[in-house]
């Protein structure tokens, strides 16, 4: 089981789906942010799993994973800064109350 690529890929897929669910279902901007982090982690798990099982990808996987983590950090920075900024305007972190523009 732990020796099969499939199980890791399925695991990452489930993680991705859970993240998607959180992103679609949560109202709080920070919750959505956390869901995205889950999704990115799912990608990383995929990458590392490929690296662990496919010889040609082995080293590359680690590099890619590292870069992805860095990008995710940058994204989180911007995201949290935006949350702070809008919280200052709206006094609420609940995204579904940000609907002054529609249709």
């Amino acid at each position, binding site marked *: 089981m732990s020796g099969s690529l499939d199980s890791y890929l399925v695991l990452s897929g489930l993680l*991705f789906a859970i*993240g998607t669910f959180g*992103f679609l279902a949560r109202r709080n*901007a920070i919750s*959505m*942010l956390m869901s*995205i982090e889950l*999704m*990115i982690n*799912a*990608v990383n798990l*995929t*990458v590392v799993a*490929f690296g662990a099982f*496919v010889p*040609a*990808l082995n080293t*590359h996987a680690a*590099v*890619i994973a590292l*870069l*992805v983590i860095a*990008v995710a950090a*940058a*994204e989180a920075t*911007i*995201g949290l*800064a*935006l*949350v702070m*900024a*809008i919280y*200052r*305007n*709206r006094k609420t972190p609940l*995204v579904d109350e*940000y609907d*002054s*523009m*529609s249709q």
Partner: protein
Amino acid sequence: MSWSDLGTIAPVVASVLVAAAILIVDLALPNRRQAIIATALGGLGIVAVVILLQAGHTGSAFGGAYSLDNLTVFLDMIFVAIAALTILFGVDYIEPRGLPIAEFAAILVFAVTGAMLIAGSTDLVLLFVALELMVLPGYVLAGFARRDPYSTEGAIKYFLLGSFSSAILLFGLAYVWGITGTTRVDGVTAALAKVAAGGSIQPGLAMGLAFMSAGVAFKMAAVPFHYWTPDAYQGSPTPITAYLSVGPKVGAFAIALRLFVGALGPLRADWLPVVIVLAALTMTLGNLVAISQDNVKRMLAYSSIAHTGYILVGLAAYAGGQHSGLSAILFYGAAYTFMNMGAFAVVAALQRRPGVSSQIATFAGLGRRDPWLGALMAVFLLSLTGIPPLAGFWAKAYVILAAVQAGGWLTALAVLAMVNAAAAAFYYLRVVVYMYMREPADELRPSSPGLLFRVGLGVTCVLTLVFGLFPAIAAAATNAAGVFGG
């Protein structure tokens, strides 16, 4: 890494240095806006020179991760132009609202650096990282008026959805990488050529393609991945909207060129139906909803969705076997850049004084109140409509020509595009109606924009006309740029 590698990516390096220079000037000479603007524009000028020095050369750097070809040069020039125009338009808008110019310019240049990197990327990882470099500053720019609830709201929507789509795209990239075993575009192409020859696509690859397509479709604002566009465009400060409407969009099409045309080229018959459906949905929905908009910014946002649809027709034509579809995409991208930026710039000019809305009523009587601004807006709108001899006409003509050449379903798509273009005339011309055929509700003073702004408007207008009157010149460049990869 070697010096020659650095030479190949010189424009990108120069661009980063410009951003740094802006920040340094800001720290060294606080409250000296002229210095900052001069640094930014001068720096971009240097970048442009660097790009032009590369014209005609080809090469690759970093072991094939970055390639310099005509496409890179062409797109880089567009991106630099976008950056310069955005600064020209932005200053007049940013300043009265008490927002910092240095950060604005620096972040913008960072974003454009990302776009330029995309233009040259021939590596999936670099492509993704460059994409992030392009869009992350974009989120900041969208929320740049951070005391404005609309701006921050648009920004956070843009950010959340953008990150969501980035994750999707990344997921897809991971699978394509896992199956093809390489991140280099040429490697992917080679691997997929085997797949195409073998005739069967593994479900894992199909899923990867799907996630990737969805991610790219999101970035170019194709239906049904377009939702972020209207809110982000409407909320952003108008000159930044002008930037968002062209920069990330052309960038997204650059990704499409490098990724779909370059890497996924062997499978183009397989992604052709997807592009056709996307194109049809995108232009139709964009136009239909644009018709019912009363806010010009939002209307232009939907119109930009529609234009995505037209450009996708070019991509479909390529997939349908017509290489001319690629130069059509590039021509469209260039023409669209200038006319659309021009249109948003006029909106920005009207909103120079804070508190002026972008509702269509603002445009009532503009033709009389401010004849030059009105005439320019009319030119941009007519060009967007596709009336000859303006840039937008040739853009459509080239796309349609490519589609017609490809034949089959693509001819039907071309007809649909033209029906859409006719419907689009309704909302573009509605603005002209307000400008020339209605009296203003209250007499607004002419908003006499500053010198930089006028230069920017002049440039966009002249380019719109030049592209229209002498399409052969631009077409030569796009034809050259359309030949890349392999």
